[in-house]
């Protein structure tokens, strides 16, 4: 089965993925160097000082030096560029400016599990729910309940996410105090591995999760509905129906199986985007993941941290699409290299 052609394709695709990462990371490298009025270091320092916190002069000096090293701002732009890549390849994203000298990598490692946990569950759940509902509505387009469901889901879609999150928080945390208003676990408890702590985590993740679900389902729903209503008109579906095959079989094997494929590509991209966190969700619900980390980085002008999260996200999205492209033939037998 594995021919030279397959190997060639796989190598080409991996190469393409690396080029994509290379280009977009280079864009991230260029941005801080476009500052015209002030070097990013001085502006970072002056901003850090303007926060009004007491900073040790020695720390400032050290900060300046490490900033130069961290940005790779000594030497020519070309030298800087080489060094920048050297650091990244070693997995070193430099120190964080706001909680100096903790490496950015450590901060990311602490926040990552919360974000990934929350987003992995909500992304997959909204994908599953959205696709199933979309499929069912697509098959029963002319039924009244299907139209009602479609209108309800579509009515939720144009609401800006921030507003949706705020409304949920106001309704379910202040007006009806059912859920905690923020955090990932009760204040004062230490993360443990037992059921009561797990239950607390679930309870805290409920509102942010619900808000992400409500926003996430709509897109998948609409996409699936359109795909399914197209497939309904295909000859093989019409034939299967005329042949009086089991309705459930037709739905799952004839319609859903085919409509699923484009949606899987979308899921891969979405899963890759998990790694940039959800800024607004985590700010509104005070959830201690990558988004909140980035928010604090914004407040304290922590370039390194923002760059680190950005690069992490680029790599995750690129690998996500790479993996899905490589396993696609397993899902769709029509595609061969």
């Amino acid at each position, binding site marked *: 089965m594995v021919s030279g052609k397959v190997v060639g394709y796989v190598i080409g695709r991996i190469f393409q993925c690396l080029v994509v990462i290379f280009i977009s990371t280079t864009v991230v490298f260029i941005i801080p160097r476009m500052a015209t009025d002030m070097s990013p270091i001085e502006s970072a320092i002056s901003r850090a000082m303007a926060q009004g916190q007491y900073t040790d002069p020695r720390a400032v000096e050290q900060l300046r030096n490490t900033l130069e090293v961290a940005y790779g701002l000594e030497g020519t732009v070309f030298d800087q560029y080489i060094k920048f890549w050297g650091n990244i390849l070693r997995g070193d994203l430099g120190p964080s400016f706001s909680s100096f000298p903790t490496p950015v990598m450590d901060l990311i490692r602490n926040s990552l599990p919360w974000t990934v946990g929350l987003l992995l569950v909500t992304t997959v759940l909204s994908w599953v729910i959205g696709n199933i509902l979309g499929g069912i509505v697509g098959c029963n387009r002319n039924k009244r309940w299907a139209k009602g469901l479609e209108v309800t889901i579509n009515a939720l879609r*144009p609401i800006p996410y921030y507003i949706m999150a705020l409304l949920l928080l106001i309704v379910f945390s202040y007006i009806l105090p059912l859920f905690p208003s923020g955090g990932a676990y009760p204040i004062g408890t230490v993360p443990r591995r037992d059921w009561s702590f797990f239950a607390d985590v679930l309870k805290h993740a409920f509102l942010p999760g619900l808000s992400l679900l409500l926003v996430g389902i709509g897109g998948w729903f609409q996409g699936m509905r359109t795909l399914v209503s197209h497939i309904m008109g295909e000859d093989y579906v019409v034939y299967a129906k005329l042949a009086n095959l089991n309705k459930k079989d037709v739905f799952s094997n004839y319609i859903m199986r085919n409509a699923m494929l484009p949606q899987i590509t979308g899921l891969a991209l979405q899963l890759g985007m998990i790694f940039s966190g959800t800024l607004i969700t985590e*700010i509104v619900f005070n959830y201690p993941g990558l988004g909140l980390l980035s928010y604090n980085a914004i407040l304290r002008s922590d370039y390194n941290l923002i760059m680190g999260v*950005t690069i992490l996200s680029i790599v995750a999205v690129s690998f996500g699409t790479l993996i899905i492209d490589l396993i696609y033939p397993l899902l769709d037998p029509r595609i061969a290299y």
Partner: protein
Amino acid sequence: MVKSLVGELVKRDTRFRTGFILMIIIVFMSILSFFSPVDPYSTYYAPVNRPPSLKYWLGTDSRGQDVFWMMTFALKNSIVFGLIAAAVSRLIALLFGTISGYIGGKTDSVLMIINDSFITLPVLLVIILIGMVFRRLSFFPLAIVMGLLGWPWDSRLFRSQILSLKERKLTYTARFSGMSTFSIIFKIYFPHLVPVFLSTFINNMIWSLGLEVTLSVLGLTNLQLPTIGTTIYWANQHQALILGVWWWLAAPIAGAIILFTALYLLSVSINEYVDPRIRYQQGSF
């Protein structure tokens, strides 16, 4: 082309009609801003925290501003913002998509790799990074930056449209009757791209306006300029909800919901029109 498209959709599609009417309301509100008796930058010209009344239709906020007139400015600025961002990104998407679809080969591969690189960029984080480098992004630069980042998905769409047009008879007919490449692209292809252009234009407006709200709520935009996002920012800063000044938040939220719903309905309707299978079914190609 655009005129007939709009006319046909108004006649045929309830969603388009609803969206169109909502959009007219929004545009009317924003035109009112030119006749505003108050200056959007001045504060404390009115009593603070008054609920909606006959004198102050949407109440006043904690900064002594009339919420109704502020909303007219906010809607105007938000629409202008979305239009700039969408125009810039459409220009790039169209260029990228047509060139790479039409020329094909090596050029296509190179352009598409650049295209994919921009797809992987986490836009919000990159804009935040740019905002940090240039301190605070003011109105026009921010709109341009969003335009510069908002094109890669749609350029793929344009590319695939061109690819399918290229294989159709009309291209050969034009080519054999001696049309130049330039006029084939402009006279033959572009009219076919108009519906996709319009629907992605609107989608891009939704996207950039959503990002603007996010960035403003975070306090990263020019906060003096009234937009939907900055209005929410100031209401949050003054703890409008805790003080019970709900109309200060309700106005921008309602404005945002109307604006986004209008744009969304328009785009869904055009999108369905674009899909040739649906058009063929209704026999109006």
